């Protein structure tokens, strides 16, 4: 069931229908006992007293896709996973919208839990995605993962 999706990027917010379809599509495998799904949502933070209205994401897409495929393959090998999927938004994502979706499945729960966390943490560190935090006064700040 190792499935390679070359394009991990979605223009605009990730809808709950997209998430539901992903679940439905991968549910057919009766060896699966556990799914762990992480969703990242754009938070209405304040930066120097100014409210964030959204994030504009861009990526070095060719490199990011390669890195994401490598990370999925690593994770499928390292953990006892059945499937692993990653999607990230590009373009303007308003606060309150989902911009990041990581989805793993396994026979038993520990593998899915461990793999989703590993993948989320590694993506933040390793994958060339850039984010411009748009502020209420039409200025912006470049987001930096820590």
């Amino acid at each position, binding site marked *: 069931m190792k499935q390679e999706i070359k394009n991990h990027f979605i223009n605009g917010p990730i809808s709950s229908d997209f998430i539901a379809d992903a679940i439905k599509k991968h549910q057919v495998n009766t060896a699966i006992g556990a799914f762990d799904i992480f969703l*990242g949502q754009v938070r209405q933070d304040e930066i120097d007293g100014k409210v964030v209205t959204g*994030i504009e*994401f*861009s*990526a*070095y897409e*060719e*490199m*990011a896709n*390669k890195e994401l495929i490598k990370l999925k393959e690593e994770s499928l090998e390292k953990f006892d996973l059945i499937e692993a999927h990653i999607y*990230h938004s590009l373009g303007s994502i308003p606060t309150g919208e989902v911009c*990041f979706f990581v989805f793993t499945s396994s026979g038993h729960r520990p593998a899915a839990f461990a793999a989703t966390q590993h993948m*989320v943490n590694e*993506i*933040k*560190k*390793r*994958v*060339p*995605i*850039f*984010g*411009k935090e748009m502020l209420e006064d039409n200025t912006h700040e*470049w*987001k*930096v*993962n820590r």
Partner: protein
Amino acid sequence: MEINIKFFGKLAELTGENELTLEVPDETGIKELEGRFTEQYATWNLQTYLVAVNQNITEQQALKNGDEVAFLPPFAGG
């Protein structure tokens, strides 16, 4: 030789460019490109970034004809 340069995020904003193709002397390495950008773009030398050559992050300096050199500011995915 010809080098393809890519700028992303804050560096694309700073340089006003997403992509450049430069014709450079054969011995040109990353250091020479950085020297050039420091002269050309105000605050370049204050920026934090990683360098990827042909889509692999590297600290290697040497370049060859046709290389794709990307300057990557801090990642913000997730």
